[in-house]
């Protein structure tokens, strides 16, 4: 069975209506959409805006690999859409949209969560937080996790 995929990395705003339409398929019983948005604070520190950067061709390859893995794990998947925004994003903006269409909701939820979790760990995309107090720093979730793992050893 064929699975429709569509990937994009763009400076322009990304659209829920568009990814929904791309994920729409007569064999779907469910479409799960994950929308990642810019939060107004990190650990209590007020955030002004974020700046996203991507190694675009490699990030698109990673999206492709994520889709291959989803098709192996949930073989009835009909559609996988991943759109990521880069550049300057303000509070409330959508930074990423992942839509997965499947015959049943269970696999659609699982596959969508798998996609966003894997994207966050592997895709060469970075964000810099600009705080209200003028400080800015590159976010490194992966590094925090590695430090936690190391301290538990």
């Amino acid at each position, binding site marked *: 069975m064929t699975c429709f995929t569509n990937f994009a990395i763009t400076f322009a705003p990304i659209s829920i209506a568009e990814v929904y339409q791309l994920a729409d398929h007569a064999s779907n019983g469910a479409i799960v959409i994950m929308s*990642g948005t810019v939060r107004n604070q990190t650990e209590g520190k007020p955030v002004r805006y974020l700046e*996203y*950067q*991507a*190694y675009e*061709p*490699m*990030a698109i*390859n990673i999206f492709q690999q994520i889709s291959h893995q989803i098709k192996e794990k949930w073989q009835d998947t009909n559609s996988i859409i991943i759109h*990521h925004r880069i550049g300057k994003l303000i509070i409330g903006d959508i*930074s*990423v949209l992942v839509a997965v269409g499947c015959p049943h909701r269970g696999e659609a939820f699982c596959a969508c969560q798998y996609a*966003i979790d894997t*994207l*966050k*760990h*592997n*895709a*060469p*995309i*970075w*964000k*810099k937080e600009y705080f209200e107090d003028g400080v800015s720093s*590159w*976010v*490194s*979730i*992966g*590094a925090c996790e*590695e430090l936690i793992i190391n301290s538990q050893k």
Partner: protein
Amino acid sequence: MTRDFLITVKIKLFAIYQEIYQQEEITLKISEKSQVKDILKIIIQEKPALKKWENLTKLAVNLEFVSPDFEVKDGDEIALIPPVSGG
């Protein structure tokens, strides 16, 4: 007598690397049969401010993650991937 042949590689810089270098990419001439970890060492030597990122940086060659001992070839595109934070 052995002669040291040089190869040319392109290094893509992102996030903290791009900020420290103030450039999106650089070109390096290195000895052939260099491993990708040797390139990271050169970069860290050139910009000691990046030292704390060394052990957290993953390496990619021609858009694929590779192990540190991967041998680079002339014309390869190498990317230094500090901890990612997409999504």
